[in-house]
């Protein structure tokens, strides 16, 4: 299955979470998303969001000031 890339660079809290929620809402179970953000609070936020919504956070990596999260829709 193809991975959908979501570029939320430049956005600040709570937008990366909101935009992620909107994108994933439209997807079907098993769809994979690569979410990129340079919001300094993105890591704890996306972890909490996945925990609350039950979507699977496969990985989160940081390169410079950029975070890349791989999320699979539950």
């Amino acid at each position, binding site marked *: 299955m193809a991975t959908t890339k979501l570029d939320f660079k*430049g*956005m*600040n*809290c*709570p*937008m990366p*979470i*909101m935009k*992620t*929620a909107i994108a994933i809402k439209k997807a079907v179970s098993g769809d994979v998303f690569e979410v990129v953000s340079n919001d300094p609070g993105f890591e704890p936020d996306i972890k909490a*969001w996945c925990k*609350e*919504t039950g979507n699977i956070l496969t990985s989160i990596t940081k390169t410079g000031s950029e975070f890349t999260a791989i999320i699979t829709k539950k």
Partner: protein
Amino acid sequence: MENQELSRTVQELQERLDKLEAKNTRLTMVLFSGDFDKVMAAFIIANGALAMGKEVTLFVTFWGLDALKKPDMGSAGKNFLEKMVTLMRPKGPAKLPTSKMNFGGIGPKLFQYMMGQKNVEPLSSLIEMSREFGIKIIACQMSMDVMGIKKEDLIDGIEVGGVAAFLSESYASNTTLFV
């Protein structure tokens, strides 16, 4: 006989558990303040909860009502004191003062500029977004009465209710915040 009783008990427990679990999906907030910074905080939290798939109810009372006013709200049909209050209070999210460093209205402009620099979403669009996500807004009937605010003075698509409406939402939520 005993089996029947047991299955009835299990069913009752299941219903109580469902009720308890449903609480985890709800957030209720009181928005009392009409300060720009506090209204901003309330809508950021509301939007975060909505993004997590929670149901959010915002009970808006007293100064908080300023944030829900239509910018072109008029004072026709209001008595003298109500007209004065209407004249003196800000109308809508763009006109709210900050709780600190307001500097006669320059403060909010300064903060809005600084927030724009950091790509923080403006308050009006946070409000719009929460509405698209299905936030439930209840305006306090009593404060509306006191200040002569009519339902048509406030943004469309909201409900009007009293303390019981708020409490009923609050009892069904596991989180209630007062801003």
